[in-house]
Every structure is written in structure tokens, then in C-alpha cells.
């Protein structure tokens, strides 16, 4: 890497490829984003603050970031298990399962939203089944620990409420974690586990002290990608969320709402906040990742 501009490189020069890279990124990524900033800069500071910090918008940030974070976290855990199973074992139908993982990628988000809503709605397969179970569970808990206010949870729904947002975001984030972990798991030397076992470590110690630290950088990458994807997700969530202001309204939906009301400045202002905060978060995650792989030779 030291002689990037080596004059004897076989491939076309650094200048040409970097120029192309910058032009392409500029055209596709930078210019549209810049437009958002420029539009926003036309607002007065007071307008900007009102646009991005009204209670309804703040509530949407909380939901968007919170649910995205939670979904990415859950995906990291289960995605790891899925990737592990797909890499380590061979079983009948493995290819089908492997292809299934990509489905949330390929499916139009609206289709995903409608399908999830149909299933989790109170008259759907899972929703219909969950409702009585949940009611019974709350009754049990209430009888057991009457001092806790379990009854408040009685009306909990999955679809058309916050859990729906979380489920949709989990659904669309899974492939990112699995696909990031798979190649890393494939390259993980079995000798590491054998070395650990021959030194007397039990399975749990081998997993937590040897395998997990090896996977951590990839896991953080997968988490970051799932998180970023969830933050920007719109299509599937709007169908299942119920979209109640102050309660189950995600930020991307709020931006669309503003646009529909011809409040372009308000929309871009929120967009800018989302952009800057996601950028900061991703930067933070990148640093974390760099830290976690500080001893790995890439």
C-alpha cells in the first residue's frame, strides 16, 4: 500500500481511477445530499429549530433511532446464529435457507409491509394467536405480582403499534448481519477451536473467549449496516406502524408528510438532522470497529 502511485502498476493509473471515483460519488451521493443542506440553509435558525425540534418530530427520532437500534441488536444476535448454522452445518435444504436470507433484500418493501401487517394484525395468523396468549399472560402476571401495573400492557398490539415498527425493521435488517458474518465465519480456522479445546477450555469458554472476539469486528459491521438500513426504512414500516403522531410515527414518514404538505424546507431540515446524526453514528461505529480489529491483519 505504500506505493499507491507506483508508476509500474499493471492497471490504469491512480489519477484516473480516483478521479472517476470522486466524480461518481459526487454525482450520485454528494450532490443530492448537498442540495438538502442548501435548501435547509435558506431557513432562518428559529424556523429550523421549530422544524426539527417540535415534540412530534422529537418523538419520531426517539422511535426511529430506538427501534432501529433494537432491531439491529436483535439481528446481530440471531443473524450470528443463522450465519453460524449456514456455515458450519450441512443439512437438507440448506441452499433454500441460504436463499431465504436474501429475501428481505429482494422483496419490495411495500410487499414486506403488507405481508407483515397481515400476519401480525389482530385478525392475522400470528396476531390472532398472540392476542389471547398475551391477555392470559398479563392476567397471570397480574395475579402473581398485583403490585406491578401489568394491566397497562393489556392493550398491546403488534401491528399498528410500536412493536410492528420493530418487527418490520428486524425483518429488513437480517440479511446485512448474516451476509457480513458468513465470509468471516468461513475463514475462521477450525484450529482456533481445537487449540482452545486442547488447552482445556470448555465449549462456553471457547465461544466467548476465542470465537466471539474473532467475530466481533464483522458483527459490528453487520450491526452498523442493519442499523443504517433500518433508520432509512420507510416502505414496510408505514403499513404496519399505525403511524400515530407522537407514538408510532417514524422520522422518514414525517419527512414524507411534510413533503405532502408542500413544506419542503421543513422536510429537508429533518432530513439534514437525520443525515448528520446517522453520519455521526456510523462514524462512531466505524471507530469502534477499527478498535475491535486493531490486532487483525486485514
Amino acid at each position, binding site marked *: 500500500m505504500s506505493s499507491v502511485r507506483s508508476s509500474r502498476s499493471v492497471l490504469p493509473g491512480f489519477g484516473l481511477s480516483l478521479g472517476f471515483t470522486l466524480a461518481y460519488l459526487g454525482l450520485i451521493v454528494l450532490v443530492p445530499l448537498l442540495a438538502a443542506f442548501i435548501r435547509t440553509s435558506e431557513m432562518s435558525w428559529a424556523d429550523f429549530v421549530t422544524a426539527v425540534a417540535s415534540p412530534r418530530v422529537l418523538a419520531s427520532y426517539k422511535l426511529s433511532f430506538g427501534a432501529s437500534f433494537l432491531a439491529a441488536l436483535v439481528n446481530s444476535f440471531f443473524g450470528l446464529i443463522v450465519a453460524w448454522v449456514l456455515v458450519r452445518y450441512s443439512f437438507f435444504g440448506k441452499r433454500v435457507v441460504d436463499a431465504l436470507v436474501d429475501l428481505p433484500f429482494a422483496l419490495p418493501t411495500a410487499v414486506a409491509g403488507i405481508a407483515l401487517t397481515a400476519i401480525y394484525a389482530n385478525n392475522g395468523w400470528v396476531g390472532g394467536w398472540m392476542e389471547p396468549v398475551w391477555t392470559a399472560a398479563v392476567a397471570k402476571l397480574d395475579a402473581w405480582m398485583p403490585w406491578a401495573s401489568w394491566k397497562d400492557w393489556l392493550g398491546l398490539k403488534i401491528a399498528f403499534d410500536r412493536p410492528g415498527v420493530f418487527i418490520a425493521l428486524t425483518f429488513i435488517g437480517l440479511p446485512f448481519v448474516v451476509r457480513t458474518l458468513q465470509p468471516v465465519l468461513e475463514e475462521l480456522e477450525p*484450529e482456533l477451536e*481445537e487449540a*482452545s479445546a*486442547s488447552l482445556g477450555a*470448555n465449549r462456553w469458554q471457547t465461544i466467548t473467549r476465542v470465537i466471539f472476539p474473532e467475530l466481533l469486528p464483522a458483527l459490528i459491521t453487520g450491526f452498523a449496516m442493519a442499523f443504517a438500513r433500518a433508520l432509512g426504512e420507510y416502505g414496510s414500516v408505514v403499513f404496519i406502524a399505525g403511524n400515530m403522531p407522537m407514538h408510532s410515527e417514524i422520522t422518514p414518514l414525517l419527512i414524507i408528510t411534510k413533503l405532502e404538505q408542500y413544506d419542503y424546507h421543513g422536510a429537508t431540515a429533518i432530513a439534514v438532522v437525520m443525515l448528520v446524526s446517522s453520519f455521526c453514528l456510523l462514524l462512531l461505529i466505524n471507530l469502534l470497529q477499527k478498535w475491535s480489529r486493531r490486532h487483525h491483519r486485514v
Partner: protein
Amino acid sequence: MSITATQITKTFGTYTALAGVDLHVPSGKLVALLGPSGSGKTTLLRVIAGLETADSGSGRIQFHAEDVTDVPTGKRGVGFVFQHYALFRHMTVFDNIAFGLNVLKRKERPSKDQIADRVHKLLKLVQLDNLGKRYPTQLSGGQRQRVALARALAVDPKVLLLDEPFGALDAKVRKELRRWLRQFHDEINLTTVFVTHDQEEALEIADEVVVMNQAKIEQVGTPQEVYDHPATPFVYQFLGNVNKLQLPWRGFSNADGSHGPFTDSSAKVAYVRPHELEVLRYRVGVDGEVASIRTIHAAGSVARLTCVRGSSEFVDVEISRQRLDELALAIDDPVLLRVRRSRTFAEDYAI
């Protein structure tokens, strides 16, 4: 602690890696398992370590009369060193070596100070005194392999098993490290088995060499025994260079200095090492097989000649540099070859 393996069979699907192998490793010896790839040597080592289980119903593994066949690898008391080190990248050298102690149950685990003490002793033993705080990626290949060795020794193993320990190193480091291993073994006197496909390595440092081929043991003996008295054509060919001479030959030097024709009623092929041949300048009326010089390779401690007998039978000969000067040979010169020592195997022993 001696190791005894009796009738070990291991198959992977339809592939037989070990076909009823018997092995005894005497206590305190350094033993090499030598063979080409696919001969089953690594599998045998892994079965001894407990990383692989022999086929059910096949034989037993004993460490000093104690049957360990069903004991899991972590409880067998083996130190295992992997070809590619298998160091834990996210841990310092110190933590790598301490790993085996840190995973012990609280009751059996030594105190932090005791662990630190032991690790430092081991670092000293493998001559890496000041590198405890480094990470494996900051070390050279030879250093990593020594860390792996120290890590294996930290748990006080009863036997040390090394799988191609120098396989991933370059030639020079390899030579240094194997001398060091020999010396190291003499210091700690731990029963050690190492796998290698490099005959030079095995012959140089092992007390005993176990030559394996096609899932079976071909011969067991000291380096000199297996080199000088190979039990099978395979061992002959695998250990060092050998000419397969198509009999009959005209030149054979007897021990008493006389010479005559060389025939063997039971074999068509004689195995002769390059240094067991004598070269004379061609003269009419002298016993010897006529050949001509094809190449002369004199860069080294001995001169290597390639001779051609008849139209296409190549014979390698090694003579001293001094003898080469005396003979003053040139390419295409006719010479006479005489066999000083040879070995024949009965005809049906096909390889």
C-alpha cells in the same frame, strides 16, 4: 510418559486415513512421523491428541498404561502445536500463553501472580523474554511458532504433539528452529511427537523416525537405521535420493576390493543411493557399466553427476569434489559405473 496406540483405524467416508496402525513412543523421546501428504501421519497425531476419534471398535490409545481413548482432548494432558500456529489474534502473547491456565476451574486455577510467573518462565524458555505485551501479528513466523509452543507447554502436558511445526516457515528459519527444538527437547525431556513431510528434518532431529505411507506404518527406527536399511522400496525412495538400476549390471565392487558383474536372480531392480556408486574413466577391459556424462553439478559440498546409461536410463551419482577434479570429466565423456552397495527387493513387492 510413553504413548501406545494399538490397531488404530480411521476412515473419512470411503477414504481410509489409518488402517490398523500400531505405534509405541517411548517415554522422553523425540519421534518424527514422516510421510508424504495423505499418508495418515497428521490423522494419527490428531487421534493421539484426541482432536479426532478413531473409528468405533478400533484400537486404543494409552498414555503410560492409562487408557485415554475416551478422554476428551482438553483432559488428556497433551500440548498440541498447529502448523499455522492457531494463536488467538486478539490476545497478547502473554494472554495466549496464559490461556490454558485462565480457563481452569476457579479451584484449580493458580493465582494471578503464579500465572504471570509461569508465563514469564515459559517466555524465557522459548527465548521471547520481552515480547509478552506484543500481539501475534507483530511477531515473525518463527516467533509465533515458539509462542504456540509455550502456550502448549503452559498446561504442563504429559506429551507434546507438533503438527508440521516448521511447515509454514522459510528455509533458513526452519533450520534454526528445528535445531532449537532438538536442544529444547534435550532440556525438558518431554515425550514429543512431531509430524513432518521433510525427511531431512526428521532425520536430523528425531530419536526415532516412523515412516508412514498409505495409512500404514512402513518402518520404525533410528534415523540411521531407516536411512541405511530401508525396509521397503517406499522407504528407500522416500528417504533421500535413490537410483533404481535395471539389472543386470556389469560393475559391482565387493567389499574385498574385487569386482565383477552384478545380478540378482529374484529382482530386476536394484536400489542404489547416488553416493554408493563409483565413477571411473572409461577404459577397455575394466569391469563397469558404460554410461556417459549428461550434467555436472559442482556447486556444493559434493559434486552431482547425471549419467545416462543406454539411451534413456538416468543415473545420479555423488562423488567428492576432489574425486571430480581427479577424473577431469566433461559432458558426454564415457565413464564406467560400479555399484558399491545396493539393495534389492523381491519382485512381487510392487510400489
